């Protein structure tokens, strides 16, 4: 088990295996998001109360899922880096943060656009919206902290600590709508319970959610690979690769 972790953790091995996985992730991501968005935005039926504005769900829910999942992945990577000193984990955590921040912003923005016609307000300080805004600030804090130190290692460690502590916000976001009275409704999409909408509305949402996850994996692999090349630029195998590729 530990031998396996260290093998995955070697930049050279990770670079090789991720290069083989990457095209499949991209195909899956682009395919699912294309089909899902066309299906959801053009062919799925409109909601009986909200009409067409309900279609924002096909962007809003996947973005919100990713915003939280990326933070958890980042915290796990930070833990692996802090305990086992695996450099690839730190690189992955570093490249995940901006994507997570963007997804959080997309979730907040589409939520506002959706809230205006349905609730009658674009922003309210309820527990779900506020905890999501805190998540955005946590992402920005992790990104800023990483860049705030003269040595890269200090920045990595500071950002890792913030990511691991900040992950406490994730269950707060998830259960905010159950623990407190909020304007935001409860979760519509869950793997474990009966769908809260008919299948012709649910299928495109499922495709979008899986597509967004594939996009996250593809982006993380791709950007971790370039981060590996950047940080290991002086290593023998990278020079060999550059000489062979050029």
């Amino acid at each position, binding site marked *: 088990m530990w031998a396996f972790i260290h093998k995955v953790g070697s930049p050279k091995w990770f670079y090789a295996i991720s290069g083989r996985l990457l095209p499949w992730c991209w195909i899956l991501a682009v395919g699912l998001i294309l089909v899902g968005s066309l299906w959801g935005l053009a062919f799925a039926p409109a909601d009986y109360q909200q009409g067409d504005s309900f279609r924002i769900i096909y962007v809003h829910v996947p973005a919100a899922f990713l915003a939280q999942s990326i933070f958890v992945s980042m915290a796990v990577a930070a833990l692996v880096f802090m305990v086992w000193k695996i450099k690839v984990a730190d690189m992955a955590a570093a490249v995940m943060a901006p994507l997570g921040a963007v997804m959080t912003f997309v979730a907040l923005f589409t939520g506002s656009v959706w809230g205006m016609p349905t*609730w*009658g307000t674009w922003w309210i300080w309820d*527990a779900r919206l506020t905890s999501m805004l805190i998540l955005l600030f946590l992402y920005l804090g992790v990104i800023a902290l990483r860049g705030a130190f003269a040595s890269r290692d200090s920045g990595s460690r500071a950002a890792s600590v913030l990511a691991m502590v900040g*992950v*406490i916000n994730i269950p707060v976001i998830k259960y905010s709508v159950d623990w407190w009275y909020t304007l935001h409704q*409860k979760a*519509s999409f869950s793997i474990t319970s009966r769908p809260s909408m008919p299948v012709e509305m649910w299928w495109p949402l499922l495709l979008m959610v899986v597509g967004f996850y594939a996009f996250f994996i593809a982006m993380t692999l791709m950007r971790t690979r370039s981060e590996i090349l950047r940080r290991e630029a002086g290593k023998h195998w990278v020079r060999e690769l550059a000489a062979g590729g050029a």
Partner: protein
Amino acid sequence: MHPKRKQKLFIILGLMTLAALAIGLTLYALRSNINLFFSPVQVAAGEAPVNRTLRAGGMVKENSVARDADSLDVTFVITDYVEDLEVRYSGILPDLFREGQGVVVVGKLDGEGHLMASEVLAKHDENYMPREVADALKAAGYSPADYSSAGGDSAPKAGSASDAAY
């Protein structure tokens, strides 16, 4: 596992547990402030302040909406199926406002238990349905809410507010 790494893992997990505990207790202590609105039960019990801006939430009671013919004035009753609260409002209501729908009302309580609203927000539940399905359900004598609550745990939150308050 290397003992040094093991020690580090335990330190990190211990710190995370402590941080989670601190945040959990803070949120627990602040729970009444984090709640977005008062339920009619809480208002009836006198938990809500009079003459200060507050939010109240519940379902719009069936057959309770009365509009003034010459102005935008409207009165309606919000309920959590235990207590009722009468709301007076003058302005444009959101599209989703209708009887049987959850709403959150911003306003002040006058001394006689009426809520003078300055803003009405519509709450919607987590269930979605095509128009044809909703029409077919109605034709068969069911309301879309019946279909939703057939799932058991998915009843609109404002409706079940009374049991969540304690």
